């Protein structure tokens, strides 16, 4: 098999002397699927840019060493020439779609390369079939769902017939259904064995069975490279590099090590593990007495006793005006009490964000009532509601505009009319709360994405709301930073006794923090209960294209061995399966 990607002694330094990649020596052969892992800032995106010619043609810097992509060095040729051999798919599908129909979008690349029209039509049909978008040729790409948009963008790259495909976190901005759709398309693409795929991601669970090779980067160096079996059997090293070990492999290895069994599978590959196989292995070892179930420490997330309601939603209907209008909420009834930690889950379009926007007053209900701390939101402006409810949006860059972190927090306080002396005290406290006390005078855009999100939390907390709402607190965060905002919310709730609501697609996050889970589907509440109650309703969850955390699925299969059903997270499972005879 011929080598399609080769890096030999590659070091890359951005302008400003920021070293992003250090002495990389890696290669991938034709038809191989390479998964690149690493914390934010490890150099994953730089590697993608280097392979696809975006560096040096769009982003500048200095490179040493040798790079070969399908036999040529992208450094030495125009980007449109590299594009004929190496396609690239970015994180955000919105910026990759510019044509009015899916057909025109997919045809755009080969048309620019002056491929004959009949050939383009053939390629368009072939690419759309591969990503399963047949029948949507005449739709406007902007009207598609997130997963469909990313698949359309993928088809547009595939239609250029690249030999190497570079995917830079292609599922990071999608909901679980969208992620599943894209991963399925990648499975079909891999099955063609024709194209070399280099994919960066944080989602190790969804790519474990796709990978032929895994490269792990840390501060620009490749610290691990090999088959999934070689890399994923080192969970401690992965954790140290800020990478989440795949849950199934992690549990398998943990159980095997505890019991003294072999971590290798007879004639089978670690990457092909599924929930049933891991549960069977753990069951066999439990049955043989080679491991013993350990008790799970009492949950600190006991449900709040009946306290006053802080949010009451009655028969809420919301209809988006348009051609035709879309009913996003269809008669929601809900009460959230003081001190609760609530997770709201559901696919994009299920109504989660619309519900929250009605609570904070950004949208006015079409019918029904929303009361916050006893007052009807219709009687209050968004600004007045902001004193009571703080909503932290996904993208911090929609709100940051001042010259320092301090000024950023002051903006909200000034709008509330807080006196200068009190505002200063609140600013210091909020910065200390989120751990940014040394960054008070830093220009917000010089902070990392994670710190910018923390700053937006600080700006909201300084306004001292009774209720804190986090919208997708794990978006674009790596394994280390994933739970930082949720941790802040947990402290906010525990130390101040306030209410927290999280909107998320991250089941592990919900399992870890929420004491109550609300599942939304098609503008309605499908389920409302404790995480244990909700995650045990697998049929209903499947209906809404959700899946319980893997650890909970394994634990349920081991219930007859004394593994408690309230095991929800990987950490819980590793703890209860950690006992020795």
């Amino acid at each position, binding site marked *: 098999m011929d080598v399609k990607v080769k890096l030999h002694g590659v070091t890359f330094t951005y302008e400003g002397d920021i070293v992003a990649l250090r002495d990389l020596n890696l290669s991938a052969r034709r038809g191989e699927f390479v998964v690149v892992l690493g914390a934010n800032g490890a150099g994953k995106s730089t590697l993608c840019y280097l392979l*696809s*010619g*975006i560096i040096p043609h*769009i982003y500048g810097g200095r490179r040493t060493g040798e790079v070969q992509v399908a036999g040529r060095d992208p450094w030495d040729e125009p*980007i*449109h020439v590299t*594009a004929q051999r190496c*396609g*690239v798919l*970015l994180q*955000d599908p919105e*910026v*990759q779609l*510019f*044509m*009015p*129909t899916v057909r*025109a979008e997919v*045809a*755009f*690349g*080969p*048309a*620019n*390369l*002056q491929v*004959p*029209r009949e050939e*383009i039509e053939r390629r368009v049909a072939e690419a759309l079939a591969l990503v399963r978008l047949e029948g949507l040729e*005449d739709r*406007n790409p*902007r009207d598609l769902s997130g997963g469909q948009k990313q698949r359309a963008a993928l088809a*547009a*790259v595939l239609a*250029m017939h690249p030999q190497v495909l570079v995917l830079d976190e292609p599922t990071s901005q999608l909901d679980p259904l969208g992620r599943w759709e894209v991963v399925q398309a990648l499975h079909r693409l891999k099955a063609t064995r024709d194209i070399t795929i280099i994919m960066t991601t944080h989602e190790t669970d969804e790519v474990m069975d796709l990978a032929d090779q895994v490269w792990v980067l840390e501060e620009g160096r490749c610290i691990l490279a090999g088959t999934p079996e070689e890399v994923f059997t080192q969970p401690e090293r992965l954790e140290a590099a800020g990478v989440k070990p795949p849950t199934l492999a992690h549990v398998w290895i943990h159980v095997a090590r505890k019991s003294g069994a072999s971590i290798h599978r007879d004639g089978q590959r670690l990457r092909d593990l599924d929930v049933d196989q891991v549960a069977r292995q753990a069951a066999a070892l439990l049955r043989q007495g080679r491991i013993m179930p350990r008790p799970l420490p009492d949950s600190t997330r006991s449900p709040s006793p009946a306290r006053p309601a802080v949010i009451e939603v009655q028969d809420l209907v919301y209809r988006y*005006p*348009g*051609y035709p209008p879309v009913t996003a909420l269809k008669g929601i009834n809900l009460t959230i009490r003081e001190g609760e930690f609530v997770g709201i889950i559901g696919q994009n379009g299920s109504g989660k964000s619309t519900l929250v926007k009605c609570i*904070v007053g*950004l949208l006015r209900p079409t019918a029904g009532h929303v009361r916050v701390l006893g007052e009807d939101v219709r009687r209050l*402006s*968004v*600004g*007045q509601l*902001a*004193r009571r409810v*703080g*909503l932290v*949006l996904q993208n911090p*860059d*929609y*709100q*940051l*505009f001042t010259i320092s972190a301090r000024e950023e927090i002051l*903006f*909200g306080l000034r*709008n*509330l009319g807080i006196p200068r002396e009190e505002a200063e005290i609140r600013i210091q406290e909020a910065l200390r709360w989120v751990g940014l006390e040394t960054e008070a005078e830093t220009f917000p*855009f010089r902070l990392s994405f994670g710190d910018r999100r923390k700053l937006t939390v600080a700006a*909201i907390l300084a306004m001292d709301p009774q209720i804190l709402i986090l919208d997708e607190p794990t978006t674009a965060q790596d394994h280390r930073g994933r739970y930082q905002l949720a941790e802040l919310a947990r402290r906010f709730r525990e130390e101040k006794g306030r209410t927290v609501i999280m909107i998320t697609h991250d089941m592990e996050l919900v399992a870890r923090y929420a004491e109550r889970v609300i599942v939304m589907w098609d503008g309605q509440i499908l389920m409302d209960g404790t995480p244990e109650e909700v995650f045990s309703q697998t049929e209903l969850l499947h209906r809404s294209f959700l899946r319980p955390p893997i650890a909970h699925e394994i634990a349920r299969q081991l219930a007859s061995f004394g593994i408690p059903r309230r095991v929800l997270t990987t950490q819980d499972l590793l703890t209860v399966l950690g006992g020795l005879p």
Partner: protein
Amino acid sequence: MNVPFRYIQRRTIVHRLHPFTKMIYVLLTLLLILIPLYDIRHLPVLLPWLGLSAALWAAARIEVGRFAALMKILAGTFIFLMLAQGFTYRYGKTVLIRFGELHFGGSNVGELTLEGVQLGFMLSVRILTAASSLPLLVMTTSNAELMAAMNQLRLPKVMTFMFVSALSFTSLIFEMWNNIMDAQKLRAFDIDRMNLITRLRRAYVPIITPLILLLFRKANDFQIALETKGFGSPGRPTEMETLRMKPVDFLAIGIFLIIFVLCNVLRFRL
């Protein structure tokens, strides 16, 4: 908020017209409003053309709500024009409201005059005439058709794509603007409750600054997406849409010309 004037995929007679035909309609509209029409007696000059536009909107099956959105956008401008002209038109004689004597630039800006209001009204009607034609072109012609038509005109590839990508970017800007407004409102920034002067004084910095910063970032991503799709390659791209003028296009152009001539005749008869 949705972008009110974006391409609406339908199969009406207006959608099926060649983009050149619709461009000729826009061009004739622009020529018509260049005719100096200041007197209220000249209003009938524009009425046939406005009637043609209304007929085209109806034939394209574009919802009344979208026209209402257009009027909502323009209403403030119309009121401003009528008041500004009403108070400043130096040849105004019929006083409607008198606030006092305040002479400035040869006119008494303390009086609202009928002639001034009429002048503002005529300017508003001319703006309405223009504003009702361009959205019709955009709403009934896909970007692919526009690109194909511009390619047929042998316009430079970069110019064609700049035009089409500007249209695409509009919806992105709308979306970002709304998200930024929401983000700032959540920090008790009650822009909806501010009066016009306060808004102009302090409201737009927290909105426009993040918008500009985000646009820079999006434009960069947009450039990457474009160039990695071979956009910079030399030579003309393969044409995927073949556009041909049909009899209905010639008929439509004929009707446009007749109405255009009628408007001009009216101009000299009135």
